[in-house]
């Protein structure tokens, strides 16, 4: 069974990572006095996204549902988050590489093209959906049914075996 203290701590870490991500997405364009600042911010942001995904995956592995082998049940339930996390991480890395590549020599240069603008819009929109799904999933990982044997789980197990 998941301990409340452990869950609170993990949830806090997840929310901190999300907050950092939102902060960088919002204000990274302002913090471009030197290209290295953006470089550090972007590297930490990408690592934070990766950490977030790893944490949510570890939480999933910690569930009783996963341990009895009902991985498909978890994937079915949280597939949207996993998909958006992968999409968002990919878009973020692409955008960061592109922006840094263009701004590396002159950080105050006008770099915008239609392609970059489109990628920017997609990345920021995916970020919002990722925040929503991640927060929701992190809250739903506190579902006690995922951590103990129950009639619901037995029924799901029986249905999967059929």
């Amino acid at each position: 069974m998941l301990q409340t203290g452990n869950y609170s701590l993990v949830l806090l870490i997840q929310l901190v990572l999300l907050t950092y991500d939102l902060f960088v997405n919002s204000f990274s364009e302002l913090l471009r006095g030197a290209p290295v600042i953006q470089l550090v911010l972007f590297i930490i942001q990408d690592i934070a996204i990766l950490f977030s995904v790893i944490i949510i995956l570890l939480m999933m592995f910690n569930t009783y549902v996963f341990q009895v082998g009902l991985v498909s049940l978890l994937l079915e339930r949280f597939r949207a988050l996993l998909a958006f996390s992968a999409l968002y991480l990919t878009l973020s890395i692409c955008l960061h590489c592109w922006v840094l590549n263009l701004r590396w020599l002159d950080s105050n240069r006008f770099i915008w093209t239609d392609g970059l603008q489109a990628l920017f819009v997609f990345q920021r929109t995916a970020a919002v959906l990722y925040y929503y799904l991640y927060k929701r999933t992190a809250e739903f990982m506190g579902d006690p049914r995922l951590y103990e044997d129950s009639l619901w789980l037995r029924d799901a197990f029986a249905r999967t075996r059929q």
Partner: protein
Amino acid sequence: MPTVKSKKKKVKKEVIAAEEQGEGMEVEMENRTNRSNSDSKDPLTPDLQDPAPHKKKKKKKTSTIVQETEHADIPNGNSAEPIIDGEEMTVAVTRKTKKKRKSKLAEHHSSDLRAEDDSIIYETQSPIPQHALFSAPHGHSQPVGKVFVERSRRFHTDRVEQLRHSELADDYMDPRQIWTTRDVALKVHHGFRVIGLFSHGFLAGYAVWNITVVYVLAGEEMRTLPNLLQQYHPLAYPAQSLLYLLLAISTVSAFDRVNLAKTSMALRGFLTLDPVAVASFLYFIALILSLSQQMTSDRINLYPTANQTLWPPGTEHQVLRPWIVVNLVVALLVGVAWAVVSTRPDIDYTEEFLMTMEVEGYPRGDENLDIPA
């Protein structure tokens, strides 16, 4: 009480008989009484007998009367009497006889009174040990009651224990100890909902302020656009960043409240024009529109540095007009979304969904399975 009365009557009869029989018999009885009293009381209250003879007789008299009346009133005296064996019964009888005798014969026989007083010395002492004897269980009434309850009715005892436990749990248990992961999740959700509510209002106000400033700086018929660029360029990028931050929080909050991940519920909300669903749609559109103006915002931001290449003379109107219109639309959208959300601030479908997180809620499990979270 009736037994006491009948005994009193018995005593009266005995007293009359004793009077008839004479003094010698009385003395004999007294001696017997004294002996039997001392015999019976010694093992029970050995220490209380010694200080008694030192007391003054008058005091003893009054105290005797008080003790007598008390003894007659206390029902416990009856319950104790059957325990007394034959000899003690006679003691009790003689004791009461002497009490009555003391009150009746005190006037007639002053010399006898002396002798009776001697016996009264023991009598005055006898109620005290008796009282102490009966008061002893009173002191331990709680544990005795417990044992009785547990022995006689086991089921009842269990219930009492359960009730006691529940009461203890209600009174003394720390609320943090009974916190579950669900409670933590709900608290976090509540916290974010408060932030979201603040964000909705702040965003609406900020967007309206932003577009007002832009229109004021642009002048009538947008004739003073260079003035707008000159005045607004330091604010353009921070404003854009803040707008994205607030829009992101507001959109996530609106999605949370409509429970967007549960597709069927969200679709039903959109089709029935649920206020929260409409608001989340408006916020999402505003977000995309706002993001689409990132390029123009950066262009405004770089107005003083790259004036020649980015802003050739005469292109201000062409670049700024769509930007102003989009900002106006964004301001209208977030304003309307805030108004719509404010009409039903109590709707939160995700919270309702989180509330159903319990093992016993098995019927809800089937619904949960269908959710692509």
